[in-house]
């Protein structure tokens, strides 16, 4: 097994699906994004979105949850198992369509590439592209992000 295999370079991996209940949408929004279209069905009907929908940050947080759950691919290459570290950030994030209450969203990730980090010997920077689709097949989210990986 090569590092590229382990990191899924060039491979689109389906991370799993998540059901966004109205209650979970409102719970998240009350703490972090209490705009009326995320906390109140009636207010949402009269808003630009037309119906209760998840905070965009709720959608990305669920991506992280499923992404983590999918990191445990068995390592049978040489040396110790690569170890994921923190991330420096993301870019080109688009919330393309609201995630409405009751939707089930399917998340994917594709490894783009990885390179050594001059400032941290033994660590590499992995870049990935992620997407999410609702039950009608419409893309609701996409973004590019990076994460540090300790190798060898």
């Amino acid at each position: 097994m090569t590092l590229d295999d382990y990191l899924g370079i060039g491979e689109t991996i389906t991370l799993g699906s998540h059901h966004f209940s109205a209650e979970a949408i409102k719970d998240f929004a009350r703490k972090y994004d209490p705009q009326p279209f995320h906390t109140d069905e009636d207010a949402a009907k009269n808003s630009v979105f037309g119906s209760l929908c998840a905070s965009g940050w709720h959608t990305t947080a669920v991506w992280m949850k499923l992404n983590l759950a999918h990191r445990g691919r068995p390592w049978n290459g040489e040396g110790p198992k690569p170890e994921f570290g923190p991330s420096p950030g993301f870019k080109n994030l688009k919330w393309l369509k609201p995630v409405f209450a009751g939707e089930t969203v399917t998340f994917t990730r594709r490894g783009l590439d990885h390179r050594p980090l001059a400032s941290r010997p033994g660590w590499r920077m992995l870049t990935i592209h992620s997407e999410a689709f609702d039950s009608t097949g419409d893309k609701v989210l996409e973004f590019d992000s990076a994460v540090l990986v300790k190798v060898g």
Partner: protein
Amino acid sequence: MSSRKWAYEDLGEGVVIDLGTKVVRADEIIEFASEFDAQPFHLDEEAGKASILGGLSASGWHTCSMFMRMLCDAVLLDSTSQGAPGIDHAKWKRPVLAGDTLSGKLTVLSSRLSRSKPGLGFVSWRAELVNQKGEMVFELVNTCMFLTREAAR
């Protein structure tokens, strides 16, 4: 909260808005991470100290969410906001550690009216969160949509 309602006209290039402060509590870090980002350095002080983050640190997605709450309280809940289509970039520049006090600031980079939708404007801004040592921990650039005062009437 002031009685002003932020509209497109209030958000011209160069406008700076204070987003207030947020104390980052350990139990909030652990609660968010338990649900969405259950990595050891977001769940446990000792594991955090042993990691390159240097202590119990907030998930980057939690930092985004804390920033969003500050933005809601300072601007969006009393505004003509029509949401945001995305984020140009966000940088987690330094660890956000339990006990940190974050101060937020928003600077409008540019604004323009929609050509296709009268009464709608696009406002691009840079947001920054700085910790109690004056170190920038988070930076974000994106565009939000706001109605003009006239359109919101």
